[in-house]
């Protein structure tokens, strides 16, 4: 009873709080995000902006001391994941939603061979035909350019970083999940390996007809593979739209600043500038008003008091008071 379609995902008004010594603080504040079926969506943002928290929420797997305190995550064929509990939730994980972990380097049990862990996975999801599962795994690994038989017989420490990451992807897909979440799939890999993994992600996505979510802090990575891109800052999605559009003509001042801060191989060095100030942490996110205002070149009075609501501009969603005002619509020339 596996779905053979790419599910759509609708995240609405999602709020996640972490319990800290000074009380519960929101890591996600009313996040809304839609993943169109069959697309690759990227989430970018700086460290601590809530990317992983959002990714985990898709599996209702926010770890204590955090909890989802409001909102919903509707996944086609599963319903509202936030409401799922117990065995239903467990079965959804792995079977309907595959997750490739942030630190895939260490996402395998060091004491068991990959094959044994694959069998554990199969048994946990009541797969009747385990030999078939092994065959499928070998095929997937082979598809990603690995010797399936050898990899299944290996322990984690016998595999290189890139190989581990591919094993992670295999484990996320082997039960035929059609929604795949990849959290920082290439962090800690070097350039060449990263390029290989990204290529594999794209190919597998296409071949299997998946809905894919990639979380990364590297805009380059997102730009390389995604169809649509969401930019997060301080627990909010500040801009979301087709990747080419968001990168080509960023509207939110943060997105703009971020792109300008990326060191690039070509172009004028002098054009690049760092954003002033520093990214917020859980404790320094302002309680009211726009979270970005401290670093914003377009700061206005209203920003201090009112948190801008995301507004749709065509295919784009932007949460900024300054966007939509004619004066500020002008996009910097060099990026057009």
């Amino acid at each position, binding site marked *: 009873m596996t779905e053979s379609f790419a599910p759509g995902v609708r995240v609405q008004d999602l709020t996640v709080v972490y319990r800290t010594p000074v009380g519960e603080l929101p890591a996600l504040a009313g996040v809304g995000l839609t993943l169109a079926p069959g697309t690759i969506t990227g989430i970018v943002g700086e460290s601590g902006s809530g990317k992983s928290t959002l990714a985990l929420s898709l599996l209702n*797997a926010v770890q204590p001391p955090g909890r989802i305190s409001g909102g919903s995550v509707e996944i086609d064929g599963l319903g509202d994941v936030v409401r799922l509990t117990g065995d239903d939730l467990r079965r959804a994980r792995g079977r309907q939603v595959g*997750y490739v*972990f942030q630190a895939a*380097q260490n996402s395998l*049990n060091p*004491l068991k061979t990959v094959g044994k*862990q694959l069998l554990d996975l199969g048994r*946990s999801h009541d797969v009747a035909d385990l030999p078939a599962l092994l065959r499928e795994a070998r095929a997937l690994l082979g598809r990603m350019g690995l010797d399936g038989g050898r990899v299944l017989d290996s322990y984690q420490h016998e595999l290189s970083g890139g190989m581990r990451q591919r094993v992670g992807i295999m484990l996320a897909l082997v039960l035929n999940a059609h929604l795949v979440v990849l959290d920082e799939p290439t962090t800690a890999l070097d350039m060449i390996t990263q390029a290989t993994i990204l290529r594999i992600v794209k190919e597998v996505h296409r071949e299997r007809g998946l809905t894919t979510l990639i979380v990364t802090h590297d805009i380059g990575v997102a730009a390389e593979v995604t169809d649509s891109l969401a930019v997060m800052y301080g627990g909010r999605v500040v801009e979301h739209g087709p990747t080419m559009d968001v990168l080509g003509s960023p509207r939110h001042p943060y997105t703009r600043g971020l792109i300008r801060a990326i060191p690039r191989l070509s172009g004028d060095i002098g054009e690049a500038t760092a954003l002033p100030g520093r990214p917020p942490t859980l404790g320094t996110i302002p309680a009211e008003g726009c979270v970005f205002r401290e670093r914003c070149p377009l700061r206005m009075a209203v920003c201090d008091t009112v948190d801008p609501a995301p507004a749709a501009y065509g295919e784009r969603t932007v949460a900024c008071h300054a966007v939509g005002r004619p004066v500020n619509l002008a996009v910097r020339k060099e990026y057009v």
Partner: protein
Amino acid sequence: MNTVIRRLTGHLARGIAMIWVVTTISFVIIRNIPGDPVRGQYEKLIEQGMGPDQAERATAALYGFLPTGSLWDQYTGYLNGLIHGDLGQSLSTPGTGVATLIGSAAKWTVLPVLGGTLLSFLLGVTLGVYAAIKRSGKLGDALAISGSLLHGVPQYVIGLLVTAIFTTLWPILPAGGPVDISFEPGFNAAYIVSLVQHATLPVLTYALASYGGWILAMKSSVATVLGDDFILAAELRGLKRSVLFRYIARNAILPLFTILALSLGMLFGGAIFIETIFNYPGLGLLLVNSIGARDYALMGGTFLVITVAIVVANIAADLLYAVIDPRVRTGGAA
């Protein structure tokens, strides 16, 4: 394979050197213990109600067993004996070899030590997992604190309390000795039941005194493993709780096995209080008695055996780790 042998020989060489040093130190200390075994025996007999003449006769025999010669000669003689596997003759039980005495005592130490360690290990590990999982709750706190507390309470205190409870207040278990002599030794129900009954209190005391330590060790080990990414990854793959539990438990227990091996070694010498309180005829009691009787050879022999046990446990712990951890077994850093 060559390296295995090389490593093992290295271990052995170091172990033997260690044993030699400890033996030498203990030899020097033991030979300098004040107290004349002959006079001690004599007065002891008198105190036990024997007439002076009879006591004199009984102790006269001891003279023949006293070591003679200069300290150096005694030392070389002793070492020479050791090399030939001869631990010497006991003074307090003349005519009996130290090896025989130690052999019979070691038998009795192994039983409660193994039983007690395994029991406390199982108990502590189980509760430790629980304490780690519930660590932010009141129960976890309570378990952790009671673990530290129990870990802290000395064996003799627990031994005393256990004796008071199970032999006086509520006399359901024998107060001492290894086994009831009424039963024919061998593989028969009555004998084994008696054996178990007698071992129960020492084992219980040991288990109670040490399971707190296991709780703490396991708790911190589980906490580390719980923080490891692969556990969250496994959870996100939707693995069953039982599988997940096995992942946690196996990884958390691994570092504890080496501690287990080490503590088994230490225990051979550490059971003194328990064996004294329960009159359990193991190595600890043998050592205490041999000190009381100034039985130099026996003291030295017991000391040696205890030291060897520790050294062997150290080597075993090291090898064990290499065998059970694939990261070490198949070479390569994790």
